[in-house]
């Protein structure tokens, strides 16, 4: 199963809709609760990163019996130093975004903690592609 969503930069009114649809789809096909929880964190944070930082992008979820792959590809400013961006508390979000409770430098660390595998490719001035894999582990085993 593949779900794909177009995300517009600075569109805070629809922010979170893609993550909500991914959550419903994962619950519908019976993925483990923990898999859904982690996938929701990755999907929402990746979606918000596009809304906050990029001009536009796509959020794609590919669902397999043993895993969920979430890909966020955007056209935007890119990340000059990925290891710095992965540090908790580091953020380039402007003050008005922070006032909304975003931009605390927790997004990418949250994604990293919830991912079994994470790849980030970024070109400054062009855009960023993030690919996260969340394994669907059977609970209680």
């Amino acid at each position, binding site marked *: 199963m593949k779900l794909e969503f177009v995300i517009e930069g600075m569109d*805070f*009114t629809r*922010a*979170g*809709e893609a*993550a*909500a649809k991914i*959550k419903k789809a994962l619950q519908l096909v019976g993925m483990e609760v923990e898999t859904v929880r982690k996938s*929701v*964190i990755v999907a*929402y*944070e990746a979606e*918000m990163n596009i809304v906050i930082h990029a001009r536009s992008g796509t959020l794609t979820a590919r669902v397999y019996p043993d895993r969920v792959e979430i890909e966020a590809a955007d056209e935007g400013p890119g990340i000059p130093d990925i290891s710095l961006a992965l540090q908790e508390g580091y953020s380039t979000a402007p003050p008005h975004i922070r006032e*909304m*409770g*975003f931009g*605390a430098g*927790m*997004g990418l660390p*949250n994604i990293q*903690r*919830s991912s079994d595998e994470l790849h980030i490719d970024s070109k400054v001035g062009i855009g960023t592609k993030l690919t996260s894999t969340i394994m669907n582990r059977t609970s209680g085993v």
Partner: protein
Amino acid sequence: MNLWNSIIKTLELTLQTKNVDLERKIRGAYCGDLLSDVLAHASPGDLWITIHRHRNIVAVAALVNLSGLIITGNRPPDPDTLETAGKEGIPLFTTPFNNFQAAGKLYKILSDYSMI
């Protein structure tokens, strides 16, 4: 008095959403104003205490499957926040208390109910 009623009375809550029944089961609570923190650390069934009143709090509440939203300091929620909360069936309240006071009162109630 049931749990919802105890909380509504003690925290002086005003239910702002219309046509949303208090059907969701309260399992705990979380207090915070950083959305990423709430998304990562709140648990399903938690009541969320926050100062924010924009609609993105509803998106987070729905994703985590929280039992309700409490906006502190009597800040009025944005109209589209209320509309989204109504659609999602998430009860949204306001309280005159600040985050600290509201959290303290709620902690006491949940302790009395042996929930924490």
